[in-house]
């Protein structure tokens, strides 16, 4: 017993070094697996509120750009209004419904919530975005996040007033995508190199693709509505050893200057994910 105490006293510094190292590594490994265990919501609130102050003052420098993006988006949305598509002789007007259920019995599936970006990284291998909107304002884990130009990421963590978004620029991020032209499915990942380019994998070589083709979110995604812009094909890499293309995609979203985003809630998200993760019993 005495020897044990002597040992601990002699190597006290080395032992505390080992202890702190192990603590750091354990935090890191469990965090990259689940994204929430060591990210207590307290720390999230503290860094979130500091980030908020900073971005409140930084926003002044990008007002012009934000304005331009918003007015562009407004113009695009106004062009899409059903009142712009009045049939000539028919006399009927179509309006978008905002209720959860309309008179014909259609149920609303997606709801959009606006949110302000208060924190954003793009220099690391695992990049996150902090939004100033949390569980008290209706944010849930797994909600999709889109910007005005294209998709941005997925909510991985929430606290009462802030939420953390795994950006597309994260090595573990994976979004199912399709080509606009012929709906060929693939999956969007990031190789960790250039924040302006993503990688589209698993596109079959049967698809006819060209540089500049648009890539959209696919119909298979559980959190993203289908048909949102992801980007355009910038480079085609046909590996002769595989049956699939690996495509370099120029992102539609400019990750260096995100200011406002929309959170999309899929009201049937939990039901779909539960069904998909169930392991079927052998018949």
């Amino acid at each position, binding site marked *: 017993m005495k020897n044990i105490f002597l040992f601990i006293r002699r190597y*006290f*510094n*080395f032992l*505390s*070094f080992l202890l*702190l*190292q192990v*603590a*750091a*590594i*354990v*935090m*890191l*490994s469990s*965090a*990259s697996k689940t994204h929430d265990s*060591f*990210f207590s919501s307290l*720390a999230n609130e*503290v*860094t979130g509120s*500091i*980030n908020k102050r*900073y971005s409140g003052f930084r926003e002044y420098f990008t007002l012009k750009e934000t304005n331009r993006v918003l007015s562009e988006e407004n113009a695009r949305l106004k062009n899409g209004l059903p009142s712009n598509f009045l049939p000539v002789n028919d006399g009927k007007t179509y309006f978008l419904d905002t209720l959860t259920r309309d008179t014909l019995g259609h149920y609303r599936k997606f709801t959009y919530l606006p949110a302000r970006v208060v*924190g954003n*990284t*793009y*220099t*690391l*291998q*695992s*990049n*996150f975005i902090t939004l100033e909107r949390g569980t008290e304002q209706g944010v849930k884990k797994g909600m999709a996040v889109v910007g005005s130009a294209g998709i941005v990421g997925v909510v991985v963590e929430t606290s009462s007033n802030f939420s*953390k978004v795994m950006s597309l620029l994260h*090595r573990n991020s994976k979004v199912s995508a399709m080509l606009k032209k012929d709906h060929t499915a693939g999956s969007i990942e990031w190789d*960790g*190199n*250039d*924040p302006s380019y993503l990688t589209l994998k698993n596109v079959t070589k049967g698809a006819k693709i060209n540089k500049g083709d648009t890539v959209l979110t696919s119909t298979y995604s559980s959190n993203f509505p289908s048909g949102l812009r992801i980007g355009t094909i910038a480079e085609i890499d046909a590996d002769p050893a595989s049956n699939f293309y690996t495509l370099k995609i120029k992102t539609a979203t400019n990750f*260096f200057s995100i200011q406002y985003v929309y959170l999309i809630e899929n009201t049937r998200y939990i039901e779909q994910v539960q069904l998909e993760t169930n392991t079927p019993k052998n018949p």
Partner: protein
Amino acid sequence: MSILLKNIIRFVLLILFQVFILNQIPPLHQFIVPYLYFIYILWLPFQINRFWLLVIGFILGLSLDYFTGTPGLHAAPCVLIAYIRPFLLNLLIPKETTEQSYIEPGYKSMGWAPYALYAGVLTFIHHFYLVLIEWLQFGDFVYFIGKVTGTTAISLLMISLAEMLFNRKGRLRTNAA
């Protein structure tokens, strides 16, 4: 100003500088990420207790981690250089002379060559370990070697800039302190 207060202010400023300025710079190249915050460990006083040195290193790394959303990623290399620092200082400075008369490491208290070696070795170890952890998670050898060299070079450049900008007085230790 007391040494404790000065170090607390330095801690806050370095973390904010790293998070809100250096991390916001659009990347010049994927290998070059500017890091400066760990200069805090380099500049801590000579006389600090080794155990507290480790704890301070851990807290420094962890507070940066909470901003970047990667708990433990920066804490591990900071603890490592905090552990190595006393051994390196023992090797590099003549005992009983500088350590007795100066408060903290710097080119004035140690001389140009030993201080450059001290900063260079600790910077290299910090980046080597940091990128190694990243590499073990994702894996790409060219990325690993390139990022260690690129990031170390840019950090050393910034450390020398910081030394020139902030002319830290090589204050002598007095009995009153």
